């Protein structure tokens, strides 16, 4: 096992602990936006997709790369936009009156 992977595991472990602490505090009111918002974060694979799509690997780049990029972008843009739409509706005092 290389050292790189252990550092990766360390980072993964820390981030997992942190995620647990952060999410446990979210009140039920916000669980649906939380789900779609965290879902958008998992679209971070867009970074991997860009590296593949932008590389010089012939059909792998154009098929896998562009496919991955499109999927990841749907996840990212769709996730953030829909979460924002939901959250903009949350108001403290009925402004709609």
């Amino acid at each position, binding site marked *: 096992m290389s050292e790189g992977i252990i550092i990766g595991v360390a*980072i993964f472990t820390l981030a997992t602990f942190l995620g647990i602490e952060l*999410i446990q505090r979210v009140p039920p009111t916000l669980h649906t936006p*939380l789900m779609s918002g965290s*879902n958008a974060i998992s679209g971070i694979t867009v970074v991997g997709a860009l590296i593949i799509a932008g590389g010089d690997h012939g059909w792998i780049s154009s098929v896998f790369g*562009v*496919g991955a990029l499109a999927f990841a*972008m749907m*996840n990212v843009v769709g996730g*953030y936009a829909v979460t924002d739409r939901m959250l903009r509706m949350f108001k403290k005092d009925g402004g709609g009156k």
Partner: protein
Amino acid sequence: MPHALAELGYLVASACFIIGLKRLGSPATAASGNRLSAWGMLLAIVVTLLAGGMLSWIEIAAGIVIGGGIGLWMARSVQMTSMPQMVALLNGFGGAASVLVAGAELLKAELGGVVLPVETGVTIQLSLIIGSVTFTGSLIAWAKLQEVMTGKPITYAGQQVVSSLLALAVLGLAAWQVTTPEAALGPFYGVLGIALLLGILLVIPIGGADMPVVIALLNSYSGVAAAMTGFVINNHVLIIAGALVGSSGIILTRIMCKAMKRSLANVLFGAFGAATAGGAGGGKSGAGLTVRSVKADDAAVQLAYAQQVIIVPGYGLAVAQAQHVVRELAELIEKNGGEVKYAIHPVAGRMPGHMNVLLAEANVPYDRLYDMDEINDAFEQADVALIIGANDVVNPAARHDTSSPIYGMPILNADKARSIIVMKRGMNPGFAGIENELFYDPKTAMLFGDAKTSLSALVSEIKAL
């Protein structure tokens, strides 16, 4: 862009995700938190574009425009009542992206004759498998919720044996690929095909109403798949973001299971809704008891003169899309001098926070919505508990009937109110497929009909008073 600077950019992006998630924890800061998280994502994308020595800009532009466009269109056009499906679909896309990235890395190595280090091989396989299961599993969840396919559990003899064997086969093929230095694409296709199939087979035996739990779990998987991809391309922002999402999904899954008092294993393998639904019609409390039905005009009088009204929304509110009329009714009651509160059960609807989102859409201020623990003592002082399309979450059997499938689930004390009005279309059971004795309570009046129609009728009756 030098490597160290790129790494620093990724670090800042990670911090944006963390602080964004933290701010998602309170209604006042949630919107800005989500935007911060989105800025972090943009930063990660820009850093990658600048650092990566991109060659094929046309491909990149195509991918971004197509994906971003479809995503934006979906986010704009989806109805608030279809949020669960939407999350399922987006989740599936995330899984698919992980599969494609990991697949590309594998193909590059195999076709280029490069022998990957074992740990990279392992993480590629994990990313492929988890991503594939997430992809097809999410699509099935979407189909069930969208009612493109039956919401009933699909079971067959030996189901779990078949699934276990397929899982073993996937692991075996993956191990073979990792340990074989020669280039071979056979196991890759095998792993891909079987994992995709497995995603389908694991989700079809789960009832449609359990889909929210499945979605939260698959959300967790998509995070883990992203983290694995991070190990593959050795990028820490993927690991951090993936781990955050992975833990968030798991926590939400646990919260939902706890609120329903069921184990995760029971949700995944219990085929809930198949057996119990059959017994619904002939439930024991139905025998010999009578239901008191009421017309909208009488109910309107009762509500118009009530001092304290507690509204209990449930899944039927979402089905009827009645959130706007509810607010109208509440405002009318308040104009007549009554006080209106909303009692939100943690698993009302089909997704955690479902009711909150619906009522927020209708501009109901979130400080009028009370969690179960906050409001349960207030029912005793309420003149009317107005139950709109809710069923299981107010079923007193959860308190005393040890044989009930929902026994032990904490419920809203609507039965403690001075009088109760229940709006539903007929005597159909709710998600758990069981009778509700509350409907036979002498204090209860049933206002039958679609929730939206009934509510509109109430509104015009009260206006006419």
